[in-house]
């Protein structure tokens, strides 16, 4: 278990102030250090040096919508003009921001993954699936409208270290619907680390909004139905089995709903490294609102906006009721 913000610009956060720090034993109520997950700097030192106060929360930026495309009635792709400092922070796999109409109160903030952060043009490309009140409000925005962007946030993917460690091999991307969007920065990273990428895609929308990226980074694309009634389809299982039996798969990334991630964890051999998208509901992203908290065995509570862990740990010992 790790904290995505540990040691960075937003660390220590207010969790340190209430002795709830994810990593530091002293900042979670202990008298002494027991630093099992060293992040490279001492969080307690940062906290004391900062006058025993948390660092500032993320800023909210006002950006302009440069482009709006609606490839499906339930899907829109926005390109936003964003400040350089924000764009630069959002190029990594797992990056996301909170978006809302500038007119709306903060409760409308909805976490949306970054599909592409262009540091030359300073633009952010995002895909939004129509879901409820918040996303409906975003759909109503048009080109040249202003949009409120809060960020940067980083914990959109679980198992990030597995992505960075995958080099010179073959990696699999299994992605459904809107889960394809956050898979794109991962493909980019895997591609730059000299991996051959095989993508299993279940687009779920009328048009495949990610076709360009898939073609750019994948050496093989398999379009198929992946999940049916909560189970992997027989066809997909058979293709995946063949693919895995070839060996040398250094990573499976799973971009889709929790049930898909769960089924892939069950299906894949434990020796294969996994990563997956973080599907937790979030409101603040800063560990305060507790929307993303999940409860585990021995009364362990994890704030999934902060806690970075291996995909297999996500459901292990988790209390569902």
């Amino acid at each position, binding site marked *: 278990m790790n904290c995505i913000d540990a040691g960075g610009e937003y660390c220590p956060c207010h969790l340190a102030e209430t002795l709830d720090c994810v990593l530091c034993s*002293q900042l979670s109520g202990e008298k*002494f250090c*027991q630093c*099992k*997950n060293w992040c490279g700097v*001492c969080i*307690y030192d940062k906290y004391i040096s900062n006058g025993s106060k948390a660092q500032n929360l993320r800023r909210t930026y006002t950006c302009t919508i440069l482009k709006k495309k609606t490839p499906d009635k339930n899907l829109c792709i926005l390109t936003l003009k964003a400040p350089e400092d924000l764009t630069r922070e959002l190029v990594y796999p797992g990056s996301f921001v909170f978006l809302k109409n500038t007119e709306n109160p903060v409760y409308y903030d909805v976490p949306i993954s970054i599909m592409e952060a262009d540091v030359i043009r300073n633009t952010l490309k995002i895909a939004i699936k129509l879901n409820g009140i918040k996303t409906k409000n975003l759909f109503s925005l048009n080109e040249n409208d202003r949009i409120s962007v809060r960020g940067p946030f980083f914990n959109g993917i679980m198992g990030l270290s597995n992505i960075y460690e995958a080099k010179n091999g073959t990696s699999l991307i299994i992605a459904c619907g809107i889960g394809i969007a956050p898979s794109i920065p991962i493909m980019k990273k895997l591609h730059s680390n000299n991996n051959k990428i095989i993508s299993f895609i279940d687009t779920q929308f009328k048009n495949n909004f990610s076709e360009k990226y898939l073609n750019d980074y994948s050496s093989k694309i398999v379009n198929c139905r992946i999940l049916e009634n909560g189970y992997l389809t027989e066809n997909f299982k058979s293709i995946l089995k063949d693919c895995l039996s070839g060996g040398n798969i250094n990573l499976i990334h799973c971009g889709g709903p929790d049930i898909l991630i769960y089924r892939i964890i069950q299906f894949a051999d434990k020796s294969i490294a996994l990563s997956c998208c973080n599907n937790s509901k979030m409101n603040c992203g800063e560990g305060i609102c507790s929307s993303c908290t999940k409860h585990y065995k021995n009364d362990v509570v994890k704030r999934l906006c902060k806690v970075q862990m291996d995909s297999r740990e996500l459901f292990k010992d988790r209390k569902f009721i």
Partner: protein
Amino acid sequence: MKVIVIGAGWSGCAAALVLGLGNVGGIMRNNGRYTAAEEITALGAGDLIGITDKLTRHKNLDFPNHAHAWLYDVNKIEPEVRKYILSKGIKINFESRVVDVKMDGSKIKGIYTSTGNYEEADVFVETTGSTGPMGNCIRYGNGCSMCVLRCPSFGPRVSISKCAGIDDLHGERTDGNYGAFSGSCKLAKETLDKELVNELEKKGVVVLKVPKEDVNLDKLKAKVCQQYALKEFAENIILLDTGHVKLMTSYYPLSKLRKIHGLENVKFIDPYSGGKGNSIRYLSVAPVSNDLKVVGLENLFCGGEKSGLFVGHTEAICTGSLAGHNAVRSALKFPTLVLPADTAVGDIISYANSRIKTPEGRKNRYTFAGAEYFNRMKEKGLYSIDTGRIRNRIKKLQLLGIFNKRLT
């Protein structure tokens, strides 16, 4: 049989038979440590004493309240010990930080490293010490002084016994605060006045007067090494030649140090911020029985500071040797060895072990070289610098070479 030793200071090296803190020490055989060095050699674990003796720069040196000290060269010791350990067929995992354990009831099944590697063994020896890491040095000291532990680079110490569910004990200061400052610093020799260096290299020790306005007796209360927590050490600057220049004080503001003749251009070499503070120690002691097995666990033994409020390298070698020996005995299902109180090593272990259970005892440190325990050593007639007599004592107890006899 597989034994994993976690930690590679003097105690870990002795148990495994690398070196971490040995690079900044240097003082051997002063006061009762002479007896202990000869005892441990007679017991059959004198390998490391042999190496420090071989690399000695100065022999039989006297400085305030300390007699017949030997100073080994801290710049030469580590490669020599490393070579020796490797020559014994011991596998060393460098830069491998153990951060957690897998338990099977009250037995440690395996250990996890910070990189996620998992390794199983029959028995484990923990010699991770009790110093730092940064958060502790901030909370109980003057902040990170960039000491030889290099926590930021290599990651902080994790208490393995605590991971296994056993709460640590802690040393205290007279003011009730936890821990204590490490007791000495190192100065870069080339930054001292040439004449002073010549004198130091010739005699091994130089004593300089501290300007009256800078004498700080309060600092002694916070010091680990109670054998050096004496008025003479506050009123004087005591320099020892260990290859670098060992400054016998926890820390000393650089601007004040440079007021002293011969030290006008002086620079700290360890800790780098020796003008501000030093590492904080005695924050993680495991409760052990006199065979150095952790109470409440079946297969974890401890040596060095982890096994009690011991100060010094000789003490680490002695406890590390016993912990390593008993780890093997335990894995073989043999009864473990408790050294009798007729030996200085056995006596310091049982004495420190009984004292740590008391509030007063937790405010003291235990060393052959001075303070409370050296007095006891003298009272009990254990102190001697007569090698033959010490060897005879061990022989009479039928313990001669016990540590280097094959157990199977």
